[in-house]
């Protein structure tokens, strides 16, 4: 067989090889003289099909295809954090050193910097029994992330020898493990893992802790759990990327994996520059210290775009296995689905809906099921939360990617064009969005922020739904004819919409709001509503109440009350009471 596996056909990123049995399914291969990276995606007795992760211009029939005998994978170890990779896990900075500002083909670079020395502490001794997932060494990967080297999940045995603490490179052996069959394995700081295989866990845990994002509309009305999954569908310009940036910046996960899957290059450079300047309030370190970026922009090869999602989630699972809470931002899963469609078309498979392959739903569900809060093999707890943006064609939510994503995620944050047009951001439509995590999370909210948090949320929800119903009438006959109690609902709902749900990402105080302040804001608004409702019921005209300027004041409280001056809310309550009391006394 040697060296006889040659290309016979080429069609875009898809290459075929005839009459060979040398390859296995999903094996990684090198194609042609430039050694382009590819993956075997189809095997028949006549021909083997390979998708190539790089531009295939210039390939010829007769060029050699060389197998690697292992599936497409990524080397996991220290050096991943604060780095930026392409879709198949090659660091873009290393590629830049090789080929300059434009990406050339066949750049063979390892995902980890193999020459960098890490300050390693060993935490096992000879004779210790280790199993898959056990931590045997740690090092400081960035100032806030401690990297814990874990035994590959499929390996276990007894430590035979250990090196002393000190400086090591990723490929240096720091311990030797002897497995049950007497075979010795060298433990380095890194190991290889196939990206399409989920990393095993000990046990799945219920999703009972919220991922606090500091975004009011999400935390109060549409919360997501750590280990949960959410979809953000929206047409172009509705702020998907903006919402994901906000979540990546402020959510309380330990680690963020941001996958730019088939999106804009300038956006990735924005993330790079913005995150390195932004200081994480909790750790006082740049955001990049806890962020991994996967950038496979829309003009980079389409097959690598398909792989980028798996590269991202594999990295996330790896850090989860160290006991971290990880959040993945996948922007955008539609581009990934389109990559599937494009490859499928080149394979001449029978299309299902809108040209998408019939296996689209199963691929989506496989991906979202890799989210979860778990007990990892070493017994620690960790989680992977997936937040996937969806870009529906023509902003039509009935298209296959949106519909199938809806089935496999439990949060649905639908972005709305008309809100975006009015520059109401985040443009999450509170009527069509939903979260299924309420019942799982209520306990946590009640314990940490009191029962009244839930009660206030329900009141806010009630007012918004009432307003929606009333607006149907207003649209037909104007608001003047409504009775005063209904006008009051409309006024208060306006405060909720503008003063509470709308949040300014560029405002220093408003970009992140702690839960305590969110609760107090709801409290003040509902307080005003209840007091005013009493007045209205005693036939005091609503115009008298609006004249007090209280509604405008509450609309601006998000700017006026700094996040560290929550005592000011008491003044607001007092002002409401005195102002309304003065009306009722006249």
């Amino acid at each position, binding site marked *: 067989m040697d060296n006889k596996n040659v290309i*016979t*056909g080429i*069609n*875009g990123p898809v290459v*075929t090889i*005839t009459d060979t049995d040398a390859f296995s399914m999903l094996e990684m291969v090198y194609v042609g003289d430039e050694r382009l990276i590819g993956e075997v995606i189809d095997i028949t007795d006549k021909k083997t099909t390979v998708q190539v992760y790089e*531009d295939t*211009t*210039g*390939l010829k*029939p*007769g060029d050699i295809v060389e197998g690697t005998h292992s599936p497409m994978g990524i080397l996991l170890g220290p050096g991943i954090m604060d780095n*930026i990779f392409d879709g198949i896990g090659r660091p*873009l900075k290393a590629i*830049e050193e090789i080929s*300059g*500002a*434009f*990406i050339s083909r066949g750049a063979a670079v390892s995902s980890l910097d193999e020459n960098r020395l890490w300050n390693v502490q060993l935490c096992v001794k000879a004779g210790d029994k280790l199993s898959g997932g056990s931590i045997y060494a740690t090092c400081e990967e960035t100032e806030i992330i401690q990297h814990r080297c874990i035994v590959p999940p499929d390996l276990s045995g007894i430590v035979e020898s250990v090196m002393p603490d000190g400086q090591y490179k990723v490929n240096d052996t720091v311990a030797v493990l002897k497995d049950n069959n007497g075979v010795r394995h060298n433990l380095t700081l890194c190991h290889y893992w196939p990206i399409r295989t989920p990393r095993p866990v000990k046990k799945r845990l219920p999703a009972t802790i919220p991922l606090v994002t500091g975004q009011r509309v999400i935390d109060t009305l549409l919360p997501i759990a750590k280990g949960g999954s959410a979809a953000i569908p929206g047409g*172009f*310009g509705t702020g998907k990327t903006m919402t994901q940036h906000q979540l990546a910046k402020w959510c309380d996960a330990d680690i963020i994996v941001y996958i*730019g899957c088939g999106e*804009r*290059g*300038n956006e*990735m*450079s924005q993330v790079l*520059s913005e995150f390195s300047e932004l200081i994480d309030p909790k750790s006082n370190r740049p955001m990049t210290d806890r962020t991994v970026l996967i950038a496979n*922009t*829309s*003009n*980079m090869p*389409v097959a690598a775009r398909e792989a980028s999602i798996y590269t991202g989630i594999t990295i996330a699972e790896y850090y989860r296995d160290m006991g971290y809470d990880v959040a993945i931002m996948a922007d955008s899963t539609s*581009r990934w689905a*389109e*990559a599937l469609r*494009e490859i499928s*078309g080149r394979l*001449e498979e029978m*299309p299902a809906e809108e*040209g998408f392959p019939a296996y689209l739903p199963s691929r989506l569900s496989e991906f979202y099921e890799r989210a979860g809060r778990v007990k990892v093999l070493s017994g620690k707890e960790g989680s992977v939360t997936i937040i996937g943006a969806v*870009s529906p064609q*023509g*902003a*039509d939510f009935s298209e296959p990617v949106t519909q199938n994503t809806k089935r496999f995620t439990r949060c649905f944050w639908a972005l709305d064009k008309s809100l975006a*047009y*009015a*520059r*109401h951001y985040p443009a999450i439509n509170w009527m069509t969005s939903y979260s299924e995590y309420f019942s799982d999370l209520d306990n946590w909210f009640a314990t940490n922020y009191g029962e009244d948090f839930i009660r206030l949320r329900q009141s806010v929800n009630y007012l918004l739904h009432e307003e929606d119903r009333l607006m149907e009438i*207003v*649209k*037909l*006959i*104007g*608001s*003047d004819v409504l009775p005063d109690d209904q006008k009051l609902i409309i006024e208060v709902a306006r405060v909720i919409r503008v*003063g509470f749900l709308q949040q300014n990402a*560029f405002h220093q105080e408003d970009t992140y709001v702690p839960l305590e302040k969110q609760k107090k804001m709801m409290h003040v608004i509902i307080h005003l509503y209840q007091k005013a409702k009493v007045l209205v019921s005693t036939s005091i005209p609503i115009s008298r109440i609006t004249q007090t300027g209280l509604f*405008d004041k509450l609309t*601006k409280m998000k700017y006026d009350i700094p996040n560290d001056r929550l005592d000011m809310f008491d003044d607001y309550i007092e002002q409401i009471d005195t102002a309304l009391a003065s009306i009722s006394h006249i």
Partner: protein
Amino acid sequence: MIIDYLGVKEINGSLIVLDGIKNASYEEIVDINLDNGTSRRGRIVQIDGERIVVEVFEGTRSISLNNTKTRLLGRPMEMPLSPEILGRVFNGAGKPIDGLGDIFPHKRMNINGTPINPVSRTYPHNFINTGISTIDTLITLIRGQKLPIFSGSGMRHNELAVQIIRQAKLSDDEQQNFCVVFAAMGVKNDVAEYFRKSFEDSGVLQKVVMFLNLSNDPIIERTLTPRCALTAAEYLAFEMDMHVLVIMTDITSYAEAVREFSSSKGEIPSRKGYPGYLYSDLASLYERAGMIKGHKGSVTQIPILTMPNDDITHPVPDLTGYITEGQIVLDRSLEGQGIYPPVGVLPSLSRLMKDGIGEGFTREDHAPLANQLFAAYAKVMDARLLASVIGEDELSAIDKKYLQFGREFESVFVNQGLTDNRSINDSLNLGWKLISLLPRSELDRIDDALLDKYYVNNDCE
């Protein structure tokens, strides 16, 4: 050894199939010599063993199964480049057609380009003053951005593009380094002539590279036109350190050419018959805008597309909007009222705007004012809707104010005429004048300090 292959095996639309070809490489360029002495160019688009599929740029008319000799050139499609391309006119496939002879190349570049490494990009934040109020204030154009104009047949998008070129040039302090690459795809001769004449009138013709694929030119060439143009643009920007503005019109014709080519290859169509890879294909054009670390130049793109039936959900505008950094949407009802430029403000957007405006770039009140104008104008739409149901007289006082604001906004702010060049300060002040038609309590997007400074009190009225 150069081999000529005799005859072809199949002809289908603009594709020909040849058999028994050895050593062909993917995307290689071939010359097809006809018996009548003419020659055409083609590109290998599929290889299956010794059978290859070639797209013929000039079309397959009068090719028969046995009147051709095909020669493989052994290289992908390249564009010869030198600083002399400025002021020249090329056809859609990059051949000079102005009768001034071939380009003596400094360099040849593959027209497909290679993706810019995201870590090598500089995030763009230099504001381009176009002198058009709606664009500068609400949809700010940034150097290195790709900002398409979504238009429809019969609207004045060409005038707008020309006005942007003319006025952006004047305000540019590095005028020396400014140039324009113009790619016409499937447009009428008059349109191309209009652009040429406008370039001449505004004295930039020597700074323009034109690529013309008119509506009666071969369709397959149309798929090359933007690639040739962008290759020229990248060369000028990143080798010659120039600020390049690329105008591409009309992207819809381009996409239709891609569709035609795809269907003749027998590919599985997705929406409206466009191939599933239209997104990737368009992205491979639009993503070639930007700035690169260590280079002074930039590529800014203003693609123009006509939305069939003014439908923004049509695949071409839809996919474009997902790739580009915003869009300028033209509105037929404004056009009908004689308002120029007919920019439909609400669906328009500039994604890079937020980091290129405000203190140090334009003025500290820019962002909140823009926000408030958008919010207020959105309310105007609601009020109009209500007025159309219950009549204007029945509206509340505040809704009437909104209607008045809406009228003024359209007739003074949006409407500005072909030659009116407004500075950013003028535009912002005008915005304040208009927003002050509304009571101060309605302005919930602007904080009090700015309101104190800029809000125009109309109490005396």
